[in-house]
């Protein structure tokens, strides 16, 4: 039974470890370098202020960015950003997955998206998840 316990513990560690992945894709002919102004729409279910983190990071990257509860920007922008954050509990809550989409401000078409998945043992802060996801999108 002791051996069984060790095997189970090892398997659990493997499951919790998983693999961290990130990826991004761009629509054909999408040119993100033309974008200057952004609006980040808060996901209605988000109570962690991820929209503010995204807007802040975009500002750091040199773009003009604002965020808000409204799903449409109060004034015209080059791009609207949407996102979905997924959280898990393992000792503490952590963000396991973040998806971000960049939409054309005029048509709403998705120009690009990025996704980062980080299991428990490779977890990052929400700020780190946002930085990594925007990093792969605007690479």
């Amino acid at each position, binding site marked *: 039974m002791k051996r069984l316990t060790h095997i189970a513990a090892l*398997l659990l560690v493997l499951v919790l470890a998983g*693999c961290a992945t990130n990826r991004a894709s761009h629509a054909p002919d999408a040119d993100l370098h033309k974008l200057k102004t952004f609006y980040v729409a808060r996901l209605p279910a988000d109570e962690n202020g991820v929209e503010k983190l995204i807007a802040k990071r975009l500002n750091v990257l040199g773009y003009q960015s604002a965020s808000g509860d409204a799903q449409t920007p109060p004034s015209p922008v080059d791009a609207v950003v949407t996102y*979905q954050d997924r959280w*898990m509990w393992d000792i503490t809550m952590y963000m*396991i997955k973040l998806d971000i*989409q960049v939409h054309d401000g005029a048509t709403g078409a998705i120009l*690009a998206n990025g996704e980062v998945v980080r299991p428990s043992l490779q977890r990052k802060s929400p700020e780190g998840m946002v930085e990594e996801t925007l990093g792969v999108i605007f690479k």
Partner: protein
Amino acid sequence: MRLRSACAAVAVILVAAGMTGCATGAKSEAMVAEKVAVSHQSSSNVTVAVSGGQSTSGMGASQISDDDFAHALSDSISKSGLFKEVVSNGGRYKLNAFIGKVDQPVFGFNMTVKMEVSYTLVDTQSGKTVWSKNIASEHTAKAGEAFAGIKRLRLANEGAAKANIEQAITEISAVGV
């Protein structure tokens, strides 16, 4: 000691249940729109191009690949008669589909996948975009549909993709190219 043994046994069972089988990608045949009433049938042919999808790794979550979505979209167009023919290259029209969002749950009993695809239909003779739209769809695979979570996620992927394709065909037919 008895409690410890029981805990160990439960842990093994949970791990075994969690690791049973590998994730499989959405199947193209399950994403095909079967019966879509089109208001206009084009006498031209079309080429389909899909991007933004991703392949499935055995240890990861079920995904929708470009190839499988393209096959499903092509088969759906053929079945509906939306265009005269789907050709691999050089069609009069080119339908681009960019899979921009596939929002999947990490776990759960009822699994809902929300999907957004940006479509553009281009007249290759004039080079003009004759239609473009961002289409959102979703599908929930309920707990009773499959025991394994990886299968429920695949079913949710397939349902969301199928609904998306159905809506795209309906809207393209209204353009009347």
